[in-house]
Protein backbone atom coordinates (compact mmCIF):
# COMPACT_ATOMS: atom_id res chain seq x y z
CA UNK A 1 0.00 0.00 0.00
CA UNK A 2 0.93 3.60 -0.48
CA UNK A 3 1.66 6.05 2.32
CA UNK A 4 1.67 9.82 2.12
CA UNK A 5 3.86 11.60 4.67
CA UNK A 6 3.69 15.33 5.23
CA UNK A 7 6.83 17.13 6.38
CA UNK A 8 7.31 20.74 7.43
CA UNK A 9 10.33 23.02 7.34
CA UNK A 10 10.62 24.80 10.69
CA UNK A 11 13.15 26.69 12.79
CA UNK A 12 15.41 24.08 14.40
CA UNK A 13 14.18 23.04 17.84
CA UNK A 14 17.37 24.15 19.54
CA UNK A 15 17.02 27.74 18.36
CA UNK A 16 15.45 30.23 20.72
CA UNK A 17 13.47 32.51 18.43
CA UNK A 18 12.71 36.15 19.11
CA UNK A 19 10.07 38.51 17.78
CA UNK A 20 11.29 41.25 15.44
CA UNK A 21 11.65 44.66 17.08
CA UNK A 22 8.56 46.00 15.28
CA UNK A 23 6.46 43.08 16.54
CA UNK A 24 5.36 42.16 13.02
CA UNK A 25 6.71 38.64 12.97
CA UNK A 26 9.25 36.24 14.37
CA UNK A 27 12.83 36.86 13.27
CA UNK A 28 13.81 33.85 11.17
CA UNK A 29 16.57 35.48 9.11
CA UNK A 30 19.78 33.42 9.21
CA UNK A 31 18.23 30.94 11.60
CA UNK A 32 18.93 27.23 11.23
CA UNK A 33 15.99 25.41 9.65
CA UNK A 34 15.21 21.71 9.98
CA UNK A 35 12.54 19.15 9.41
CA UNK A 36 9.95 19.38 12.20
CA UNK A 37 10.80 16.67 14.80
CA UNK A 38 7.29 15.16 14.74
CA UNK A 39 7.44 14.96 10.93
CA UNK A 40 10.73 13.08 11.17
CA UNK A 41 8.97 10.54 13.38
CA UNK A 42 6.23 10.28 10.74
CA UNK A 43 8.77 9.54 8.01
CA UNK A 44 10.50 6.98 10.21
CA UNK A 45 7.21 5.19 10.88
CA UNK A 46 6.43 5.03 7.17
CA UNK A 47 9.90 3.63 6.46
CA UNK A 48 9.49 1.00 9.17
CA UNK A 49 6.15 -0.04 7.68
CA UNK A 50 7.90 -0.41 4.33
CA UNK A 51 10.65 -2.48 5.91
CA UNK A 52 7.98 -4.74 7.40
CA UNK A 53 6.55 -5.24 3.93
CA UNK A 54 3.28 -3.53 4.76
CA UNK A 55 3.97 -0.49 2.62
CA UNK A 56 5.17 -0.45 -0.97
CA UNK A 57 5.61 3.24 -1.67
CA UNK A 58 6.21 6.33 0.46
CA UNK A 59 5.45 9.76 -0.93
CA UNK A 60 6.83 12.70 1.07
CA UNK A 61 5.11 16.03 0.62
CA UNK A 62 5.80 19.52 1.85
CA UNK A 63 4.34 22.93 1.18
CA UNK A 64 5.87 26.34 1.25
CA UNK A 65 8.85 28.08 -0.27
CA UNK A 66 11.31 26.47 -2.69
CA UNK A 67 13.65 25.73 0.25
CA UNK A 68 11.20 23.12 1.53
CA UNK A 69 12.87 20.86 -1.05
CA UNK A 70 15.65 20.39 1.52
CA UNK A 71 13.21 18.83 3.98
CA UNK A 72 11.73 16.62 1.27
CA UNK A 73 15.28 15.50 0.37
CA UNK A 74 15.82 14.68 4.05
CA UNK A 75 12.72 12.50 3.97
CA UNK A 76 13.96 10.85 0.77
CA UNK A 77 17.32 10.19 2.41
CA UNK A 78 15.53 8.54 5.32
CA UNK A 79 13.75 6.17 2.94
CA UNK A 80 10.84 7.90 1.21
CA UNK A 81 10.52 6.98 -2.49
CA UNK A 82 9.52 10.26 -4.06
CA UNK A 83 8.59 13.79 -3.13
CA UNK A 84 6.02 16.42 -3.97
CA UNK A 85 6.49 20.10 -3.20
CA UNK A 86 3.48 22.39 -3.22
CA UNK A 87 5.32 25.61 -3.83
CA UNK A 88 4.10 28.98 -2.65
CA UNK A 89 5.60 31.95 -0.89
CA UNK A 90 2.25 32.89 0.59
CA UNK A 91 1.48 32.26 4.26
CA UNK A 92 -0.05 28.82 4.71
CA UNK A 93 -2.37 28.17 7.61
CA UNK A 94 -3.29 24.65 8.73
CA UNK A 95 -6.68 24.74 6.97
CA UNK A 96 -4.94 25.63 3.68
CA UNK A 97 -2.32 22.91 4.21
CA UNK A 98 -5.07 20.39 4.95
CA UNK A 99 -6.86 21.40 1.74
CA UNK A 100 -3.67 21.03 -0.34
CA UNK A 101 -3.10 17.63 1.26
CA UNK A 102 -6.67 16.64 0.48
CA UNK A 103 -6.08 17.45 -3.19
CA UNK A 104 -2.93 15.31 -3.14
CA UNK A 105 -4.76 12.49 -1.37
CA UNK A 106 -7.36 12.51 -4.14
CA UNK A 107 -4.60 12.28 -6.75
CA UNK A 108 -2.41 9.70 -5.04
CA UNK A 109 -5.02 7.62 -3.19
CA UNK A 110 -2.77 6.58 -0.30
CA UNK A 111 -4.12 4.07 2.23
CA UNK A 112 -2.46 5.87 5.08
CA UNK A 113 -1.44 9.49 5.63
CA UNK A 114 1.06 10.10 8.41
CA UNK A 115 1.76 13.55 9.84
CA UNK A 116 3.41 14.90 12.96
CA UNK A 117 0.99 15.81 15.74
CA UNK A 118 2.14 19.43 15.71
CA UNK A 119 4.79 21.68 14.26
CA UNK A 120 7.07 23.26 16.83
CA UNK A 121 6.71 26.75 15.33
CA UNK A 122 2.95 27.29 15.09
CA UNK A 123 2.17 24.74 17.85
CA UNK A 124 -1.28 24.34 16.31
CA UNK A 125 -1.83 20.59 16.42
CA UNK A 126 -4.58 20.82 13.77
CA UNK A 127 -3.52 19.77 10.27
CA UNK A 128 -3.94 15.98 10.60
CA UNK A 129 -7.36 16.29 12.19
CA UNK A 130 -8.49 18.76 9.51
CA UNK A 131 -7.22 16.58 6.68
CA UNK A 132 -9.10 13.63 8.16
CA UNK A 133 -12.27 15.70 8.30
CA UNK A 134 -11.94 16.97 4.72
CA UNK A 135 -11.25 13.53 3.28
CA UNK A 136 -13.80 11.76 5.47
CA UNK A 137 -11.14 9.47 6.93
CA UNK A 138 -10.80 8.24 10.50
CA UNK A 139 -8.02 9.77 12.59
CA UNK A 140 -5.50 8.31 15.02
CA UNK A 141 -3.90 11.32 16.64
CA UNK A 142 -0.94 11.44 19.07
CA UNK A 143 0.04 7.89 18.10
CA UNK A 144 2.58 5.98 20.15
CA UNK A 145 1.96 2.67 18.37
CA UNK A 146 0.64 1.88 14.90
CA UNK A 147 -0.36 -1.61 13.73
CA UNK A 148 -1.65 -1.97 10.20
CA UNK A 149 -3.99 -4.89 9.61
CA UNK A 150 -5.81 -5.93 6.42
CA UNK A 151 -8.41 -3.25 6.06
CA UNK A 152 -7.82 -1.33 9.25
CA UNK A 153 -5.15 0.20 11.45
CA UNK A 154 -4.92 -0.05 15.23
CA UNK A 155 -3.51 3.09 16.79
CA UNK A 156 -2.49 3.49 20.43
CA UNK A 157 -2.89 7.13 21.35
CA UNK A 158 -1.35 9.19 24.11
CA UNK A 159 -4.23 10.79 26.02
CA UNK A 160 -4.32 12.85 29.21
CA UNK A 161 -5.00 9.91 31.53
CA UNK A 162 -2.70 7.39 29.83
CA UNK A 163 -3.14 5.44 26.60
CA UNK A 164 -6.13 4.68 24.40
CA UNK A 165 -6.35 2.27 21.47
CA UNK A 166 -8.67 2.84 18.54
CA UNK A 167 -9.21 0.89 15.36
CA UNK A 168 -9.68 2.87 12.15
CA UNK A 169 -10.91 1.80 8.75
CA UNK A 170 -8.39 2.34 5.99
CA UNK A 171 -7.66 4.78 4.45
CA UNK A 172 -6.90 6.73 7.60
CA UNK A 173 -4.87 9.61 8.98
CA UNK A 174 -2.32 9.10 11.77
CA UNK A 175 -0.45 11.84 13.62
CA UNK A 176 2.70 10.95 15.52
CA UNK A 177 3.64 11.55 19.11
CA UNK A 178 7.24 11.62 20.29
CA UNK A 179 7.27 8.10 21.60
CA UNK A 180 6.17 6.41 18.40
CA UNK A 181 9.75 5.70 17.37
CA UNK A 182 13.34 6.90 17.36
CA UNK A 183 14.14 8.34 13.91
CA UNK A 184 17.30 7.04 12.24
CA UNK A 185 20.07 9.18 10.85
CA UNK A 186 20.42 9.46 7.10
CA UNK A 187 23.69 7.87 5.94
CA UNK A 188 25.85 9.70 3.41
CA UNK A 189 25.19 7.16 0.61
CA UNK A 190 21.45 7.54 1.26
CA UNK A 191 21.75 11.31 1.12
CA UNK A 192 23.50 10.97 -2.26
CA UNK A 193 20.86 8.53 -3.51
CA UNK A 194 18.10 10.87 -2.35
CA UNK A 195 19.34 13.49 -4.80
CA UNK A 196 18.35 11.22 -7.66
CA UNK A 197 14.90 10.40 -6.38
CA UNK A 198 12.02 12.15 -8.16
CA UNK A 199 10.69 15.37 -6.69
CA UNK A 200 7.69 16.94 -8.41
CA UNK A 201 6.61 20.50 -7.90
CA UNK A 202 3.07 21.81 -8.04
CA UNK A 203 1.27 24.86 -6.69
CA UNK A 204 -1.90 25.46 -4.68
CA UNK A 205 -3.39 26.98 -7.86
CA UNK A 206 -2.72 23.83 -9.86
CA UNK A 207 -4.34 21.84 -7.08
CA UNK A 208 -7.32 24.19 -7.19
CA UNK A 209 -6.98 25.16 -3.54
CA UNK A 210 -7.82 28.57 -2.11
CA UNK A 211 -5.14 29.26 0.48
CA UNK A 212 -6.35 32.71 1.54
CA UNK A 213 -5.50 33.12 5.24
CA UNK A 214 -8.43 33.15 7.64
CA UNK A 215 -6.59 34.65 10.54
CA UNK A 216 -4.28 37.61 10.74
CA UNK A 217 -1.39 37.96 13.15
CA UNK A 218 -1.66 41.48 14.51
CA UNK A 219 1.39 41.37 16.73
CA UNK A 220 4.03 39.08 18.14
CA UNK A 221 5.80 39.83 21.38
CA UNK A 222 8.03 38.11 23.90
CA UNK A 223 6.24 36.58 26.89
CA UNK A 224 6.44 38.33 30.25
CA UNK A 225 9.92 37.78 31.64
CA UNK A 226 10.17 36.10 35.02
CA UNK A 227 11.95 37.99 37.75
CA UNK A 228 15.39 36.64 38.50
CA UNK A 229 15.20 34.51 41.62
CA UNK A 230 17.60 33.81 44.43
CA UNK A 231 19.75 30.86 45.36
CA UNK A 232 19.19 29.41 48.80
CA UNK A 233 21.95 27.81 50.83
CA UNK A 234 20.18 24.72 52.07
CA UNK A 235 16.88 22.88 52.40
CA UNK A 236 16.05 24.58 55.70
CA UNK A 237 16.29 28.01 54.10
CA UNK A 238 14.22 26.82 51.13
CA UNK A 239 11.39 25.57 53.36
CA UNK A 240 11.54 28.75 55.44
CA UNK A 241 11.29 30.96 52.30
CA UNK A 242 8.43 28.94 50.86
CA UNK A 243 6.54 29.26 54.14
CA UNK A 244 7.15 32.86 55.12
CA UNK A 245 8.11 34.70 51.93
CA UNK A 246 6.32 32.94 49.07
CA UNK A 247 3.59 31.58 51.36
CA UNK A 248 2.89 28.68 49.06
CA UNK A 249 3.16 25.84 51.60
Amino acid at each position, binding site marked *: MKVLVAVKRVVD*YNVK*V*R*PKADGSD*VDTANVKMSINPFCEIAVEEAVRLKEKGVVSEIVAVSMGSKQCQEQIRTALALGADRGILVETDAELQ*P*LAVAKCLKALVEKESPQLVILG*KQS*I*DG*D*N*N*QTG*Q*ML*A*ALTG*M*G*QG*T*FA*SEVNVEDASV*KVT*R*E*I*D*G*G*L*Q*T*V*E*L*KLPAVVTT*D*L*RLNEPRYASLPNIMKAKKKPLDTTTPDELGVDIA*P*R*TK*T*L*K*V*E*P*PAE*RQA*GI*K*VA*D*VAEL*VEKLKSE*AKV*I
Partner: protein
Amino acid sequence: MSILVIAEHDNAELKGATLNTVAAAKAIGGDIDVLVAGSGCGAVAEAAAKAEGVSKVLVADNAAYEHQLAENVAKLVADLGKNYSHVLAPATTTGKNMLPRAAALLDVQPLSDIIAVESPDTFKRPIYAGNVIATVQSSDAIKVASVRTTAFDPVAAEGGSAAVESVDIVDDAGLSQFVGEELAKSDRPELTAARVVISGGRGMQNGDNFELLYKVADKLGAAVGASRAAVDAGFVPNDMQVGQTGKIVAPDLYIAVGISGAIQHLAGMKDSKVIVAINKDEEAPIFSVADYGLVADLFDAVPELETKL
Protein backbone atom coordinates in the same frame (compact mmCIF):
# COMPACT_ATOMS: atom_id res chain seq x y z
CA MET B 1 -23.12 36.47 20.52
CA SER B 2 -23.62 32.90 21.55
CA ILE B 3 -20.92 30.52 22.58
CA LEU B 4 -20.87 26.74 22.60
CA VAL B 5 -18.47 25.20 25.11
CA ILE B 6 -17.65 21.52 24.71
CA ALA B 7 -17.54 19.83 28.11
CA GLU B 8 -14.58 17.69 29.14
CA HIS B 9 -15.79 14.65 31.06
CA ASP B 10 -15.50 10.89 31.47
CA ASN B 11 -19.27 10.18 31.42
CA ALA B 12 -19.32 10.16 35.23
CA GLU B 13 -17.75 13.45 36.21
CA LEU B 14 -17.45 16.92 34.72
CA LYS B 15 -13.74 17.80 34.51
CA GLY B 16 -12.45 21.06 35.93
CA ALA B 17 -11.06 22.07 32.55
CA THR B 18 -14.64 22.77 31.46
CA LEU B 19 -14.99 25.48 34.12
CA ASN B 20 -11.84 27.23 32.88
CA THR B 21 -13.22 27.10 29.35
CA VAL B 22 -16.52 28.62 30.47
CA ALA B 23 -14.42 31.40 32.04
CA ALA B 24 -12.82 32.08 28.65
CA ALA B 25 -16.31 32.15 27.13
CA LYS B 26 -17.38 34.70 29.76
CA ALA B 27 -14.44 36.87 28.76
CA ILE B 28 -15.79 36.88 25.20
CA GLY B 29 -19.30 37.69 26.42
CA GLY B 30 -22.70 36.42 25.30
CA ASP B 31 -24.89 33.42 26.03
CA ILE B 32 -22.95 30.33 26.99
CA ASP B 33 -24.26 26.87 26.18
CA VAL B 34 -22.40 23.74 27.19
CA LEU B 35 -22.48 20.55 25.12
CA VAL B 36 -22.11 17.26 26.99
CA ALA B 37 -21.60 14.47 24.45
CA GLY B 38 -21.26 11.04 25.96
CA SER B 39 -23.08 7.94 27.04
CA GLY B 40 -24.87 7.71 30.38
CA CYS B 41 -23.63 11.21 31.09
CA GLY B 42 -26.68 12.61 32.92
CA ALA B 43 -24.72 13.42 36.07
CA VAL B 44 -22.20 15.38 33.97
CA ALA B 45 -25.00 17.44 32.44
CA GLU B 46 -26.41 18.18 35.89
CA ALA B 47 -23.00 19.32 37.08
CA ALA B 48 -22.56 21.51 34.00
CA ALA B 49 -25.97 23.10 34.62
CA LYS B 50 -24.75 24.25 38.04
CA ALA B 51 -21.67 26.00 36.68
CA GLU B 52 -21.72 29.77 36.96
CA GLY B 53 -22.66 31.65 33.79
CA VAL B 54 -24.06 28.74 31.78
CA SER B 55 -27.42 29.44 30.07
CA LYS B 56 -28.19 26.03 28.68
CA VAL B 57 -26.77 22.53 28.70
CA LEU B 58 -27.18 20.38 25.61
CA VAL B 59 -26.87 16.66 26.22
CA ALA B 60 -26.17 14.21 23.43
CA ASP B 61 -26.42 10.92 25.26
CA ASN B 62 -25.74 8.06 22.91
CA ALA B 63 -23.47 5.02 22.65
CA ALA B 64 -21.85 6.62 19.59
CA TYR B 65 -20.36 9.30 21.87
CA GLU B 66 -19.27 7.05 24.73
CA HIS B 67 -15.54 7.31 24.13
CA GLN B 68 -15.77 10.70 22.46
CA LEU B 69 -14.29 9.44 19.23
CA ALA B 70 -13.38 12.51 17.19
CA GLU B 71 -15.07 11.19 14.05
CA ASN B 72 -18.47 11.13 15.77
CA VAL B 73 -18.26 14.06 18.17
CA ALA B 74 -16.74 16.48 15.63
CA LYS B 75 -19.69 15.91 13.32
CA LEU B 76 -22.10 16.67 16.15
CA VAL B 77 -20.13 19.77 17.18
CA ALA B 78 -20.08 21.02 13.58
CA ASP B 79 -23.84 20.44 13.24
CA LEU B 80 -24.61 22.36 16.44
CA GLY B 81 -21.79 24.88 16.03
CA LYS B 82 -23.35 26.38 12.90
CA ASN B 83 -25.76 28.25 15.15
CA TYR B 84 -23.10 29.86 17.33
CA SER B 85 -20.60 32.69 16.95
CA HIS B 86 -17.95 30.80 18.95
CA VAL B 87 -17.16 27.18 19.67
CA LEU B 88 -14.68 26.55 22.49
CA ALA B 89 -13.16 23.43 23.97
CA PRO B 90 -10.44 22.98 26.56
CA ALA B 91 -7.00 22.32 25.03
CA THR B 92 -6.86 18.82 26.51
CA THR B 93 -6.00 15.80 24.36
CA THR B 94 -9.75 15.26 23.82
CA GLY B 95 -10.27 18.86 22.77
CA LYS B 96 -7.19 18.93 20.54
CA ASN B 97 -8.29 15.71 18.88
CA MET B 98 -11.86 16.73 18.14
CA LEU B 99 -11.96 20.50 17.67
CA PRO B 100 -9.82 20.92 14.50
CA ARG B 101 -11.90 18.20 12.87
CA ALA B 102 -15.10 20.08 13.70
CA ALA B 103 -13.53 23.33 12.46
CA ALA B 104 -12.62 21.79 9.10
CA LEU B 105 -16.20 20.55 8.72
CA LEU B 106 -17.29 24.16 9.29
CA ASP B 107 -14.57 25.39 6.88
CA VAL B 108 -13.00 27.49 9.64
CA GLN B 109 -9.36 28.01 10.67
CA PRO B 110 -9.32 27.24 14.42
CA LEU B 111 -7.14 28.92 17.03
CA SER B 112 -5.26 26.60 19.36
CA ASP B 113 -4.45 27.15 23.00
CA ILE B 114 -5.70 30.70 23.49
CA ILE B 115 -4.37 32.34 26.65
CA ALA B 116 -6.25 35.66 26.51
CA VAL B 117 -9.33 37.21 24.94
CA GLU B 118 -8.66 40.68 23.49
CA SER B 119 -12.03 41.01 21.77
CA PRO B 120 -14.61 38.58 20.35
CA ASP B 121 -12.44 38.04 17.26
CA THR B 122 -8.95 38.64 18.65
CA PHE B 123 -7.03 36.33 20.93
CA LYS B 124 -3.53 35.77 22.26
CA ARG B 125 -1.80 32.44 21.90
CA PRO B 126 1.73 31.18 22.47
CA ILE B 127 3.84 29.93 19.56
CA TYR B 128 7.40 28.57 19.31
CA ALA B 129 7.17 26.65 22.59
CA GLY B 130 5.89 29.70 24.41
CA ASN B 131 8.86 31.88 23.42
CA VAL B 132 6.57 34.18 21.47
CA ILE B 133 3.03 35.38 22.16
CA ALA B 134 1.00 36.10 19.04
CA THR B 135 -2.10 38.29 18.91
CA VAL B 136 -4.32 36.76 16.28
CA GLN B 137 -7.51 38.03 14.67
CA SER B 138 -9.93 35.63 13.03
CA SER B 139 -12.02 36.63 10.02
CA ASP B 140 -14.08 33.43 10.08
CA ALA B 141 -17.80 33.74 10.76
CA ILE B 142 -17.56 31.14 13.53
CA LYS B 143 -14.59 31.38 15.83
CA VAL B 144 -13.39 27.94 16.88
CA ALA B 145 -10.76 27.91 19.61
CA SER B 146 -9.20 25.62 22.16
CA VAL B 147 -8.51 27.20 25.52
CA ARG B 148 -5.35 26.85 27.59
CA THR B 149 -7.08 26.12 30.85
CA THR B 150 -4.27 27.31 33.10
CA ALA B 151 -4.64 30.82 31.64
CA PHE B 152 -8.23 31.29 32.86
CA ASP B 153 -9.47 31.01 36.46
CA PRO B 154 -12.37 28.56 36.59
CA VAL B 155 -15.91 29.79 37.09
CA ALA B 156 -17.70 28.60 40.24
CA ALA B 157 -18.89 25.01 39.99
CA GLU B 158 -22.04 25.79 41.99
CA GLY B 159 -24.71 28.44 41.90
CA GLY B 160 -25.88 28.23 38.29
CA SER B 161 -29.21 26.79 37.23
CA ALA B 162 -29.11 26.24 33.49
CA ALA B 163 -31.80 24.36 31.64
CA VAL B 164 -30.83 20.91 30.40
CA GLU B 165 -31.97 19.97 26.91
CA SER B 166 -31.35 16.74 25.12
CA VAL B 167 -30.04 16.67 21.56
CA ASP B 168 -31.36 13.96 19.28
CA ILE B 169 -28.68 14.07 16.60
CA VAL B 170 -26.76 10.81 16.44
CA ASP B 171 -23.61 10.86 14.32
CA ASP B 172 -21.93 7.53 14.03
CA ALA B 173 -19.46 7.99 11.21
CA GLY B 174 -18.53 4.30 11.33
CA LEU B 175 -14.87 5.14 10.70
CA SER B 176 -13.41 4.28 14.06
CA GLN B 177 -13.88 2.03 17.01
CA PHE B 178 -12.74 2.19 20.59
CA VAL B 179 -10.58 -0.85 21.42
CA GLY B 180 -9.36 -0.20 24.94
CA GLU B 181 -7.47 2.06 27.26
CA GLU B 182 -4.85 1.95 29.96
CA LEU B 183 -5.29 4.75 32.42
CA ALA B 184 -2.64 5.52 34.99
CA LYS B 185 -4.18 5.28 38.45
CA SER B 186 -3.25 7.82 41.07
CA ASP B 187 -4.66 9.12 44.34
CA ARG B 188 -2.80 12.37 43.90
CA PRO B 189 -4.46 15.44 42.38
CA GLU B 190 -4.64 15.78 38.61
CA LEU B 191 -1.48 17.31 37.21
CA THR B 192 -3.10 20.20 35.36
CA ALA B 193 -5.31 21.16 38.28
CA ALA B 194 -2.91 20.67 41.23
CA ARG B 195 -1.93 23.62 43.42
CA VAL B 196 1.53 22.16 43.89
CA VAL B 197 3.49 20.12 41.36
CA ILE B 198 6.80 18.37 41.95
CA SER B 199 8.54 17.09 38.83
CA GLY B 200 11.56 14.92 38.23
CA GLY B 201 13.91 14.80 35.28
CA ARG B 202 16.80 12.76 34.00
CA GLY B 203 18.61 13.45 37.26
CA MET B 204 16.25 11.04 39.03
CA GLN B 205 18.27 8.24 37.37
CA ASN B 206 15.48 5.65 37.48
CA GLY B 207 11.79 5.10 38.09
CA ASP B 208 12.24 3.79 41.62
CA ASN B 209 13.80 7.05 42.71
CA PHE B 210 10.55 8.86 41.87
CA GLU B 211 9.40 7.37 45.20
CA LEU B 212 11.37 10.24 46.80
CA LEU B 213 9.15 12.73 44.95
CA TYR B 214 5.95 10.82 45.75
CA LYS B 215 6.74 11.12 49.46
CA VAL B 216 7.19 14.89 49.21
CA ALA B 217 4.08 15.13 47.02
CA ASP B 218 1.98 13.31 49.60
CA LYS B 219 3.06 15.75 52.30
CA LEU B 220 2.20 18.75 50.11
CA GLY B 221 -0.91 17.34 48.48
CA ALA B 222 0.97 17.76 45.22
CA ALA B 223 0.80 16.12 41.81
CA VAL B 224 3.94 14.56 40.35
CA GLY B 225 5.18 15.47 36.88
CA ALA B 226 8.21 14.68 34.78
CA SER B 227 10.37 16.06 32.02
CA ARG B 228 10.44 14.47 28.60
CA ALA B 229 13.87 13.02 29.39
CA ALA B 230 12.42 11.12 32.36
CA VAL B 231 9.51 9.85 30.26
CA ASP B 232 11.67 8.86 27.30
CA ALA B 233 14.02 7.01 29.63
CA GLY B 234 11.01 5.02 30.82
CA PHE B 235 11.18 6.24 34.43
CA VAL B 236 7.49 7.21 34.44
CA PRO B 237 4.47 7.05 32.07
CA ASN B 238 4.03 9.68 29.36
CA ASP B 239 0.90 11.21 30.85
CA MET B 240 3.15 12.72 33.55
CA GLN B 241 5.11 14.76 31.02
CA VAL B 242 5.13 18.52 31.49
CA GLY B 243 6.16 20.60 28.49
CA GLN B 244 5.41 21.83 24.99
CA THR B 245 4.32 18.39 23.86
CA GLY B 246 3.00 17.20 27.21
CA LYS B 247 0.84 18.95 29.76
CA ILE B 248 0.83 22.66 30.48
CA VAL B 249 0.67 23.44 34.19
CA ALA B 250 0.57 26.69 36.15
CA PRO B 251 0.40 25.73 39.83
CA ASP B 252 1.10 28.00 42.80
CA LEU B 253 4.29 26.07 43.42
CA TYR B 254 6.33 24.07 40.93
CA ILE B 255 9.33 22.13 42.22
CA ALA B 256 11.71 20.97 39.47
CA VAL B 257 14.05 18.24 40.66
CA GLY B 258 16.95 17.09 38.49
CA ILE B 259 15.52 18.94 35.49
CA SER B 260 17.90 21.03 33.39
CA GLY B 261 15.18 23.28 31.98
CA ALA B 262 15.14 22.83 28.20
CA ILE B 263 12.86 25.30 26.40
CA GLN B 264 10.41 22.51 25.64
CA HIS B 265 10.03 21.86 29.38
CA LEU B 266 9.85 25.53 30.33
CA ALA B 267 6.98 25.93 27.83
CA GLY B 268 4.92 23.70 30.08
CA MET B 269 5.53 25.28 33.47
CA LYS B 270 6.93 28.79 33.29
CA ASP B 271 3.62 30.40 34.21
CA SER B 272 3.75 28.77 37.64
CA LYS B 273 3.50 31.30 40.46
CA VAL B 274 6.58 30.16 42.34
CA ILE B 275 9.25 27.94 40.81
CA VAL B 276 11.79 26.03 42.88
CA ALA B 277 14.72 24.28 41.25
CA ILE B 278 16.84 21.61 42.89
CA ASN B 279 19.80 20.70 40.71
CA LYS B 280 23.44 19.96 41.31
CA ASP B 281 24.50 21.78 38.13
CA GLU B 282 24.52 25.44 38.97
CA GLU B 283 24.67 26.36 35.27
CA ALA B 284 21.37 24.56 34.53
CA PRO B 285 18.98 26.87 32.61
CA ILE B 286 16.19 26.04 35.06
CA PHE B 287 17.86 28.43 37.55
CA SER B 288 17.19 31.36 35.22
CA VAL B 289 13.44 31.00 35.78
CA ALA B 290 13.46 29.66 39.35
CA ASP B 291 12.40 31.95 42.18
CA TYR B 292 14.30 29.77 44.62
CA GLY B 293 17.21 27.71 43.47
CA LEU B 294 19.04 25.13 45.52
CA VAL B 295 22.31 23.80 44.14
CA ALA B 296 22.51 20.40 45.75
CA ASP B 297 22.42 16.67 45.09
CA LEU B 298 18.76 15.78 44.87
CA PHE B 299 19.36 12.49 46.67
CA ASP B 300 20.35 14.48 49.77
CA ALA B 301 18.02 17.44 49.32
CA VAL B 302 14.73 15.72 48.52
CA PRO B 303 14.65 13.38 51.56
CA GLU B 304 15.67 16.32 53.73
CA LEU B 305 12.90 18.41 52.21
CA GLU B 306 10.43 15.66 53.04
CA THR B 307 11.44 15.57 56.71
CA LYS B 308 11.35 19.37 57.04
CA LEU B 309 7.84 19.79 55.65
